[in-house]
């Protein structure tokens, strides 16, 4: 075990059950997981296995029904109030009455960051996701992928030490995705952020992560945790190396095990 000071996320026997009209749904059960400072952890698993729910628990948007969770040694609520993390939702969740620019500015306004600094950050992050030129547009005037990129820009502008990203690149094409993957890795290396990343793409998970958490549904639980042996510096063509393919194969096996249809 690592010293407590290093652990950013510490889940112990975490369980969460939703009570719906027609009976309880066990979204998470017995999740034990520790994520240390500077790690890049990907979550992968069939849809409905509780990835989003786990991220929401970290973010203090859901309360676990059993077990405990600590963020930076604090309770999830304290961590939220200390603005410990940035969150990219699975859907873009942009405010329709704000332009793209103003949407990105939202968290900065809330944290009371100076105008000048706000402007600089907005420009930088919108450039990063290749949305310059669309600052003055309203969300409904953008395509689905552009909206998703705007929401990524919003989370990056925030600049928290812990980033929670729920399928941020789902709606993007391969080229943009590769580009953003590289950018994200770069950012992570430079800033030593801790990143929790939900994805459905095995290559993406392997390419980005230091650790890959494989989950399986009904009830949602962690079935495998795979440490990456890849170096920190990862050019895009690392994806063709045998080492990479081996890890990917292991993830695929873990994933397949959690699925019900095998033919």
């Amino acid at each position: 075990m690592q010293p407590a000071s290093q652990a950013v996320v510490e889940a112990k026997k975490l369980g969460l059950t939703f009570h719906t009209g027609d009976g309880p749904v066990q979204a998470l059960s017995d999740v034990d997981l520790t994520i240390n400072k500077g790690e890049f952890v990907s979550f992968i698993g069939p849809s409905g296995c509780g990835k989003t729910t786990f991220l929401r628990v970290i973010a203090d948007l859901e309360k676990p029904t059993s077990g405990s969770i600590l963020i930076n040694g604090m309770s999830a609520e304290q961590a939220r109030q200390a603005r410990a993390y940035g969150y990219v939702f699975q859907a873009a969740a942009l405010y329709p009455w704000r332009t793209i620019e103003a949407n990105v500015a939202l968290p900065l306004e809330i944290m009371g960051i100076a105008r000048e600094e706000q402007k600089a950050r907005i420009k930088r992050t919108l450039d990063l996701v290749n949305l310059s030129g669309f600052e003055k547009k309203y969300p409904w005037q953008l395509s689905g992928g552009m909206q998703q990129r705007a929401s990524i820009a919003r989370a990056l502008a925030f600049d928290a030490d812990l980033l929670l990203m729920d399928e941020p690149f789902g709606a993007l094409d391969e080229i943009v995705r590769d580009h953003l993957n590289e950018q994200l890795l770069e950012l992570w290396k430079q800033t030593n952020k801790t990143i929790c990343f939900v994805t459905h793409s095995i290559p993406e998970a392997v390419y980005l992560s230091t650790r890959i958490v494989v989950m399986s549904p009904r009830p949602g639980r962690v079935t495998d945790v795979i440490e990456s042996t890849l170096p920190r510096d990862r050019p895009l063509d690392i994806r063709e190396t045998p080492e990479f393919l081996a890890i990917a194969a292991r993830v695929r096996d873990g994933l397949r095990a959690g699925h019900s249809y095998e033919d």
Partner: protein
Amino acid sequence: MSRFGISWQAGLALVLCAMAAVALPLAADAAFSAGTTVLIFALIVLCALASMTVASTAFAAAILFVGAHGAAWLLVSGIAGHEGSARASFFLLVAAAWLLAWRCVTELVTIRPKNRTADTMLRLIVPTIFGVWLLLLWEALVRGFGIPFVLLPPPSTIAVRIANSLPVLAADVNQTIFKAVLVGYVLGCGTGFAAAIAADRFIFLRRGLLPVGNMAAALPIIGVAPIMVMWFGFDWQSKAAVVVIMTFFPMLVNTVVGLTASGHMERDLMRTYASGYWQTLFKLRLPAAMPFIFNALKINSTLALIGAIVAEFFGTPVVGMGFRISTEVGRMNIDMVWAEIAVAAVAGSVFYGAVALVERAVTFWHPSIRGG
């Protein structure tokens, strides 16, 4: 394409004309010369037929416009001075002309003009035709049936009265609208809004205030107005107080509902920023509540006017729209009563229109404005 062929309005108008021809003359006494009668028939029949054959929508609308209003004008001006003498034939022709106007409006709304000014013009013309017909029918019925003017004066005498009493009307408008209504509206909507925020902020208040607010809302003006006169004196301040009470509740209810209108994910987003109550309020929940708040502002714009006028039925100085209405009824000057009502209606519509314009600007993002 489908322009040709029989429109039911024009067809029915022709049928009515035929019936009117059988039921001639138009009036029991010599209200209409033979020439006028023929002219009226000719106008309606020819325009109805022409509208069904010309190719361009705009042209058909223009023909119908001329026919309907020309005939209506002849009918109404002919019966003036011969009140109560109209026979069935007269009313049949009025109905026929009205059908043509209806057809005219249906043609007009299908026109999609290219430039902006033409579009705005069209948007104004359609409701105007509707309103003009409301007045024309009113005039024709009152004069045609010979309803005593002390019961219901025709619009023409009301118009004359308005023209002759401009200074009095201006003084009344100043007293009622520029003092009582505006002040009351601002205060009422303001306090309603503040109360809604307070209720939202403190669960305790929400649970307590809403039921009590309901009670206050139902305090009928008739009961409240005399009390307000006792408390705030007989000048406009007491009227403003009544307006405050009337506008408070719609604002409260709508704002409270509106504050719950933001989406779950949007609210979660704010939570992840550990955004404080006020920040979430100003940056998310209020913008999302705007459609509801404007709903209340619009309803209140008309309620405020009613409230102020009704409140003036009680103690007032001898000026004000409500004062004038209640006194002139007593003096049998019903045309003056209607003149005030007309002024109130115009003022209220302008007020409402202004609020609606602001709404368009503020809630431009809402699907109902973006188009849906």
